[in-house]
C-alpha cells in the first residue's frame, strides 16, 4: 500500500526524495571533501617541504636496522620501502681527507660510472672522480682492517677500486640525510667523495676502535653504522595519516634519546604546517556544512510537510473509519519515512559522487575520494531533519478536524508567529553573540565563527521577507480591486493569502542569501588571493636561483635582459623586518605595486629614491695584499693583529685574512690573497684589529691606526691602490682612514662605498627597527623614502632597498637569503635559459597565479569552495522546489480558475494572474536573498578565514565582484520567469469548464 501510494504521488514523492537526498548528500560531501582537503594539505606540505621534511634517516650503531625501521614504520601505509645502507668513516695514511666507506641498496642506479664497473665482491670499491684514485688502485683506510687477525694484528683491508663514478646529485632523494659528495664547485679539503662497496665487505673487515662515526661518537669495535632511509610517498599519504605521521615523528624524536640511535628528519616542520592548515580547514568546513544542512532541513521541512498534506484525504478516510490516532499517525508517517530511509543510501552515494566531482575539479589530481566514517552519520543526521518535519506535519494532519478535509472552502489557518519568533530570536541571539565576541566588529583578525554570519543573516532576512510580502500585497490588493484588471487582482489575492508564498520566500531567501554570500565571498577572496599573491610573489613570475654573489646575480640578469624591462635581480632576507634588495630601475619595470597604498606614488618614483652614491669600491686582484699603516705605540704587553675582510668571488661569506701584528709606530703588512682573487677581483670590505692582552695588563689599550697605503701583487709586481674614502661605523666623522683598536669599543674601518643609513621603502609599522642587511648582521635603521602599506616580495613588515647599496653595506650574504629573478616576461623559460647561460642555476619558478592557487588550496579556501558549490546547488534546488510548490498550489485552484473562465474571465487575465503570482513570489525570495547575502558579505567579509595564516601585508581589499553576483541573481530570475511561463501555460491547459461538474477537491 505504501509503495502504491508513493507511485500514486510519484511527482511529489520524487521531489521529496530529491530534496531529501540533497541535504544528505551535502552533509556527506562535507566529511568526504574535508578528508580529501586534508589529504591535499598534507600532500602539499610534504611535496613542498625540503627533502629533509619528506622522510627520516634512521641510523643506529647497534645493528638490527631492519627490525628497528620495521617497528618505526609499522602501521604507516604511506612510506616507501626503506632504503638500507651501512657506513664506516676512516682516515687514510698520508691523506688529510676523511673517507666514508658506504654501501646503500641501489647505489649503482644513482651514480654515473665514469670508468670501470660497480663493485660486486667484498672489498671492491668505487671511488669518486674527484678523489684522485685510479682504476685498479688498492686503497688502505686506517680504520678498515682485515677481519682475520695476523701475526702483527689486523692489517689494513685492501680496498680495490673497480669503478670511478661521477657524484650523484645532492638533490637526489636517494642520498637523503647524508652528504656523501663534495658539492660541485665547492670542494672541501678535508672530505672526499664516498667510497662505495658491497655489503659483503662488512664480513671481511673489521672497523678498529678509535674510528669516529659521523655523529662524533666512538664506534664499538667491528662496528658499522647502519641506516634506513624512509620516505613519505606523497601519492599515498592521506589526511587520515596525520596522526600516524605525528606518532612517527614523536617516535623518531624519542629514538634520539638512545645513544646508539639517531633519526634525522625535518618532518616536524611539515607537521606544523599541516596542523596549521588542517586546523584552519576544520571549523569553517563544519560551519559551511551546518548551514547547508540547515538549509536542506528547511527545504525538507516544507516538502515533507507537503507530502503528508497530500495524503490528507487518505488520512481523513482512515480517521473516518475509526483508526486510532497512533495508527493514523503511523499511517501518515509511513510514506515520508520510507522515502527518507531510501534517501539515506542514495544521498550518501550522491554525496560521494558529488564530492568526487568536486575533488576532481578543485583539488590536485590524484587525491583519492574516500568515504570517511563520519560521512554516514552526517547523512543520517541530515535525514533526521526530514523526520523532524514529517512527525509534526503528520501529527497535525492526524489531529485536525476531519471535516476540514471535505469542506468546500477550507478554513484559513493563520500562519503562526511562534516558530518564526523562535527562529528570529535564535538568529538575533546568534548575531548578538558574534557582535559581542567581536567576530563581526573586529576587523583585525579572521575568525571561523564569522562563517556562521551568512546563514544567520540569510535566515533572518528571509523570515522577515516572508512575513512582509503578504502584508505588502494585502495593501496593494485594495489598489488592484479598483484598478489594474483581474489578473493582478487575482495574483495579489493569492500571494496575500497563499500558504505557499511565505514558505517559498523563506526558503528562497535563505538559499539565495547563502548563495549570494558564497559568490560574494568567493569573488572577494579570490581577489584577495590574487592581490596577496601578486605582492608576495613580487612580480608575475619569480625564478629562484642558487645563491651566488650579489654582483654575479646583478650581472647575470643584466646580460640575460639587456633591455632592463623584463627582469630584476632580487635577494630576499627573512625578517622581521624582512628585506627585499633589488635593482630599483628594473624593479620599476617588473614589480607589482599599487600607488593608492603608497600615497599615490608610483613604483618608478619609489624606486628612483633608492639608489645611493656610486662611490668606487676597493678591488683587489692578484696573489698578495699589502697594507701600510701608522699607529700609536702599543702599551706594554699588548699585542694587536690586523685583519682584512674580503669578499671573494664564488663565496657568499666574507673571508678574513691576517695582516700581521703591529709593531713600533708604523709598518707594512702583507698576506696572500685567497686563490680566487687571482682570477677575479676580490673586494676589500673592512680592516680591523684584534687584541691580545698581557697576563696582567697595567694599562688599557687604545691604539689609533691610520691606513696610509694599499697595494696588490699580481704577476710578481706590486700595484699601489688609490686610497678610498674611509668610514668607521662607530665614529661616523672619522674619514681619514684612522680607526681605534681598543677594548671595549673596538672599531672597524671600512671603505666608504655606501650610504650608512640606506634608503628604503618601508612597508608596515617599521618604526625605528633595525634592518638585518643582506648578511643578517649589519643591522641598522633605514632612511624611509616612502611608506607603503604593501611592497613587492614582502609578506610582512619590511623594507625594499637597492641591492647594490645593500651589497656594499653587508659583509656577505646570509644562508637564509633567497635569490630570485623577478620577471614579467611572457616566456619565463627563455629567461631561465638565458640566466643559466650566464652561470646561474635555476631552482624553481613560481608565478603569482600559482601562488594564488596555493592559497585557494589552503583550509579556508577549500571550505569556501565547498560553500560556493553547495550553496549554488542548494539555491537551484530551492528555486525548483518553489516552482513546484507554486505549481501544486495553483493546480489545486484549477476548479476556481475553471469557474472564473466559465463566468467570462479571459484566459489572458488568468495567465497574467498565474504569471504574476509566481514572479512576485520568486522575485521576492530571490531579491531577499540578494539583500541578505550582500548584508552578510558586508558584515562578515574581512572576518571570515581566508588564509591558513592571515597575511600581514598587503591590506586585503575584500572587493566583491558584482558580475558573478549579478549573474547568479539574474540567472535565478531568468529561470524563474521561464518556469513561471511554463507552469502557467501547463496550468491554463488544464483548466476546463467540464471540471465544474466534479466536486471541488
Amino acid at each position, binding site marked *: *500500500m505504501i509503495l*502504491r*501510494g508513493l*507511485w*500514486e504521488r510519484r511527482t511529489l514523492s520524487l521531489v521529496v526524495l530529491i530534496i531529501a537526498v540533497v541535504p544528505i548528500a551535502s552533509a556527506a560531501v562535507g566529511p568526504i571533501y574535508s578528508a580529501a582537503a586534508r589529504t591535499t594539505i598534507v600532500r602539499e606540505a610534504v611535496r613542498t617541504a625540503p627533502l629533509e621534511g619528506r622522510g627520516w634517516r634512521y641510523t643506529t650503531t647497534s645493528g638490527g636496522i631492519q627490525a628497528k625501521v620495521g617497528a618505526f614504520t609499522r602501521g604507516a601505509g604511506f612510506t616507501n620501502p626503506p632504503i638500507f645502507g651501512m657506513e664506516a668513516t676512516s682516515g687514510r695514511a698520508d691523506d688529510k681527507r676523511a673517507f666514508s666507506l658506504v654501501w646503500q641498496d641501489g647505489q649503482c642506479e644513482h651514480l654515473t660510472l665514469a670508468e670501470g664497473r660497480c663493485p660486486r665482491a667484498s672489498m671492491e670499491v668505487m671511488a669518486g672522480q674527484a678523489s684522485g684514485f685510479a682504476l685498479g688502485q688498492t686503497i688502505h683506510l686506517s680504520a678498515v682492517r682485515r677481519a682475520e687477525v695476523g701475526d702483527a694484528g689486523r692489517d689494513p683491508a685492501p680496498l680495490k677500486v673497480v669503478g670511478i663514478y661521477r657524484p650523484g646529485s645532492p638533490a637526489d632523494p636517494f642520498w637523503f640525510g647524508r652528504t656523501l659528495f663534495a658539492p660541485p664547485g665547492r670542494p672541501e679539503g678535508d672530505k672526499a667523495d664516498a667510497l662505495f662497496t658491497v655489503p659483503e665487505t662488512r664480513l671481511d673487515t673489521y672497523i678498529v676502535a678509535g674510528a669516529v662515526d659521523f655523529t662524533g661518537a666512538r664506534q664499538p669495535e667491528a662496528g658499522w653504522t647502519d641506516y634506513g632511509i624512509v620516505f613519505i610517498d606523497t601519492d599515498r599519504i592521506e589526511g587520515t595519516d596525520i596522526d600516524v605521521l605525528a606518532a612517527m615523528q614523536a617516535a623518531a624524536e624519542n629514538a634520539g634519546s638512545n645513544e646508539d640511535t639517531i633519526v634525522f628528519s625535518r618532518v616536524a616542520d611539515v607537521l606544523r604546517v599541516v596542523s596549521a592548515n588542517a586546523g584552519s580547514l576544520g571549523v569553517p568546513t563544519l560551519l559551511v556544512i551546518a548551514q547547508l544542512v540547515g538549509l536542506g532541513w528547511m527545504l525538507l521541512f516544507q516538502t515533507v510537510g507537503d507530502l503528508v498534506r497530500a495524503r490528507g*484525504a*487518505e488520512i481523513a*478516510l*482512515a*480517521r*473516518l*473509519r*475509526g*483508526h*486510532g*490516532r497512533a*495508527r493514523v499517525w503511523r499511517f501518515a508517517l509511513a510514506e515520508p519515512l520510507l522515502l527518507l530511509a531510501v534517501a539515506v543510501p542514495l544521498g550518501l552515494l550522491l554525496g560521494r559522487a558529488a564530492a568526487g566531482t568536486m575533488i576532481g575539479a578543485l583539488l590536485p589530481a590524484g587525491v583519492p575520494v574516500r568515504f570517511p566514517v563520519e560521512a554516514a552519520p552526517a547523512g543520517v543526521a541530515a535525514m533526521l531533519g526530514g523526520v523532524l518535519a514529517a512527525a509534526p506535519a503528520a501529527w497535525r494532519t492526524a489531529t485536525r*478536524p*476531519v*471535516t476540514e478535509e*471535505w469542506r468546500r*472552502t477550507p*478554513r*484559513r489557518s493563520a500562519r503562526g508567529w511562534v516558530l518564526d519568533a523562535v527562529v528570529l530570536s535564535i538568529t538575533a541571539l546568534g548575531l548578538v553573540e558574534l557582535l559581542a565576541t567581536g567576530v563581526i566588529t573586529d576587523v583585525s583578525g579572521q575568525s571561523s565563527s564569522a562563517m556562521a554570519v551568512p546563514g544567520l543573516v540569510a535566515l533572518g532576512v528571509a523570515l522577515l521577507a516572508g512575513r512582509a510580502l503578504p502584508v505588502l500585497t494585502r495593501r496593494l490588493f485594495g489598489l488592484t480591486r479598483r484598478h489594474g484588471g483581474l489578473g493582478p487582482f487575482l495574483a495579489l489575492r493569492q500571494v496575500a493569502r497563499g500558504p505557499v508564498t511565505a514558505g517559498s520566500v523563506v526558503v528562497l531567501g535563505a538559499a539565495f542569501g547563502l548563495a549570494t554570500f558564497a559568490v560574494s565571498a568567493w569573488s572577494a577572496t579570490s581577489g584577495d588571493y590574487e592581490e596577496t599573491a601578486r605582492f608576495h610573489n613580487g612580480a608575475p613570475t619569480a625564478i629562484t636561483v642558487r645563491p651566488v654573489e650579489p654582483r654575479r646575480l646583478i650581472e647575470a640578469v643584466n646580460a640575460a635582459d639587456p633591455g632592463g624591462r623584463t627582469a630584476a635581480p632580487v635577494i630576499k632576507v627573512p625578517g622581521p623586518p624582512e628585506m627585499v634588495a633589488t635593482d630599483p630601475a628594473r624593479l620599476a619595470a617588473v614589480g607589482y605595486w599599487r600607488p593608492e597604498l603608497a600615497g599615490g606614488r608610483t613604483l618608478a618614483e619609489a624606486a628612483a629614491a633608492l639608489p645611493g652614491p656610486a662611490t668606487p669600491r676597493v678591488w683587489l686582484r692578484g696573489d698578495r695584499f699589502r697594507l701600510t699603516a701608522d699607529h700609536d705605540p702599543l702599551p706594554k704587553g699588548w699585542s694587536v693583529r690586523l685583519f682584512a675582510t674580503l669578499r671573494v668571488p664564488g663565496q657568499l661569506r666574507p673571508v678574513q685574512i691576517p695582516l700581521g701584528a703591529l709593531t713600533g709606530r708604523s709598518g707594512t703588512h702583507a698576506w696572500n690573497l685567497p686563490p680566487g682573487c687571482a682570477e677575479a677581483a676580490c673586494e676589500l670590505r673592512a680592516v680591523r684589529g684584534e687584541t691580545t692582552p698581557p697576563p696582567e695588563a697595567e694599562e688599557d689599550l687604545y691604539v689609533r691606526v691610520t691606513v696610509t697605503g694599499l697595494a696588490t701583487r699580481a704577476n710578481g709586481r706590486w700595484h699601489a691602490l688609490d686610497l678610498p674614502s674611509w668610514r668607521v661605523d662607530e665614529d661616523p666623522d672619522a674619514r681619514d682612514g684612522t680607526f681605534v683598536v681598543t677594548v671595549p669599543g673596538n672599531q672597524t674601518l671600512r671603505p666608504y662605498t655606501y650610504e650608512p643609513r640606506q634608503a628604503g621603502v618601508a612597508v608596515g609599522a617599521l618604526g625605528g627597527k633595525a634592518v638585518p642587511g643582506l648578511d643578517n648582521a649589519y643591522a641598522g635603521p633605514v632612511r624611509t623614502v616612502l611608506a607603503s602599506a604593501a611592497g613587492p616580495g614582502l609578506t610582512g613588515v619590511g623594507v625594499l632597498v637597492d641591492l647594490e647599496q645593500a651589497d656594499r653595506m653587508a659583509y656577505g650574504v646570509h644562508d637564509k637569503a633567497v635569490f630570485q629573478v623577478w620577471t614579467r616576461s611572457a616566456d619565463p623559460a627563455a629567461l631561465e635559459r638565458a640566466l643559466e647561460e650566464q652561470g646561474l642555476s635555476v631552482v624553481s619558478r613560481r608565478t603569482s597565479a600559482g601562488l594564488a592557487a596555493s592559497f585557494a588550496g589552503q583550509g579556508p579556501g577549500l571550505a569556501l569552495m565547498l560553500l560556493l558549490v553547495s550553496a549554488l546547488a542548494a539555491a537551484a534546488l530551492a528555486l525548483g522546489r518553489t516552482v513546484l510548490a507554486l505549481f501544486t498550489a495553483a493546480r489545486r485552484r484549477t476548479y476556481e480558475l475553471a469557474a472564473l473562465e466559465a463566468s467570462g474571465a479571459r484566459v489572458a487575465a488568468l495567465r497574467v494572474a498565474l504569471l504574476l503570482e509566481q514572479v512576485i513570489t520568486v522575485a521576492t525570495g530571490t531579491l531577499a536573498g540578494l539583500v541578505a547575502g550582500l548584508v552578510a558579505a558586508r558584515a562578515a567579509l574581512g572576518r571570515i578565514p581566508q588564509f591558513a595564516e592571515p597575511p600581514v601585508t598587503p591590506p586585503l581589499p575584500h572587493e566583491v565582484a558584482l558580475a558573478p553576483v549579478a549573474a547568479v541573481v539574474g540567472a535565478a530570475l531568468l529561470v524563474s520567469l521561464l518556469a513561471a511561463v511554463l507552469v502557467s501555460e501547463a496550468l491554463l491547459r488544464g483548466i476546463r469548464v467540464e471540471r465544474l461538474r*466534479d*466536486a471541488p477537491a
Partner: protein
Amino acid sequence: MSVVRCDGIVQIYKAHEVEVVALRDVDLVIDEGETVALLGPSGAGKSTLLWLLAGLLRPSAGRLWLNGADIGRLSQRSLDRLRAAQIGMVLQNPARNLIGYLSAAQNVTFAQRAVKRDRRRAGDLLRRVGLQDAGDRPAGRMSGGEQQRLALAVALANKPRLLLADEPTSQLDERSGAWVVDLIKRAADVDGTTAVVVTHDMSVSEALGRTVTIRDGRVGAEGRRGEDFVVVGREGAVQVPPEYHHLLPPGSMARIEELEDGIALRRAEP
C-alpha cells in the same frame, strides 16, 4: 431502542471570523433498523448533522447519544472505537470514500483495519454491490456508479449499526440509484442497520421509511408512511413548508385559530 438521540443540538462554526449557526435546537430520535432520509435545501445543515452523527464533530451545545453513548463525554479514543465498530459512512463524492490506487477489496479491508478484518464479509459485500469481478483494478479507474457502490460496500465493511450516507445517488442514473437504495434497505433488513441518508432525490426519500427535513438548522418537518408533518420546536415554533409560502409568505402576519386538536393559521391584514 434508539440508535440516535439528539437533544437540543446546536452546532456553531467559525468562518472568516464570523460565527455561523449550522444547527439550532435539533431534537431527533432514530430507532434501530429505521431508514431515514434527511432532506432540506443546500446549506440547511444536513451534512453537519450527518458529521455529528458520525462522531466527527462534537456538538457546540445539547447532547447526542449514539447507541446510548453520550458522544460529548466520550474520549477521542472511545469515539474512534465507536466509529470503527458501529458507524459506516458514505461521503458525498464517491471518490472521496475510496483510496484511488487500491483495489475494491483493499478498500474494503482498509475500512476493517480498525476492527477485526473479515475477508469473507469483504467478499460478500463486493458480491452484494456487484463488484466481485472488479479484480485488481484501482478504485480510481472505476466508473462513478462503481465507485458509489464500492463506497457503500466500504461503509458497510465493519457491519455498522448506523449507516450514514450523504447523497449516495447523486451521480448515478436511476437504475443504479435504485440499486444503491435497495442495498441500504437490505442492510437494514438483513443486518438491522439503521440508515440515515442525506438526499435531494425524492425517489430515495420515498423509498426510505422516514424523512426528516432540515430547514435553517432546525428539524422543520418529518414524513412517515407517505405523509408529511411539520414539527413543533422546543419554543413552539413551527416552520411553514415552502409549498405554503404563497399563502403565508415569510414576513407576513397570521391569526391563530384554535381547533379541537390543534390550531389553524390564517393570513391577517392588519
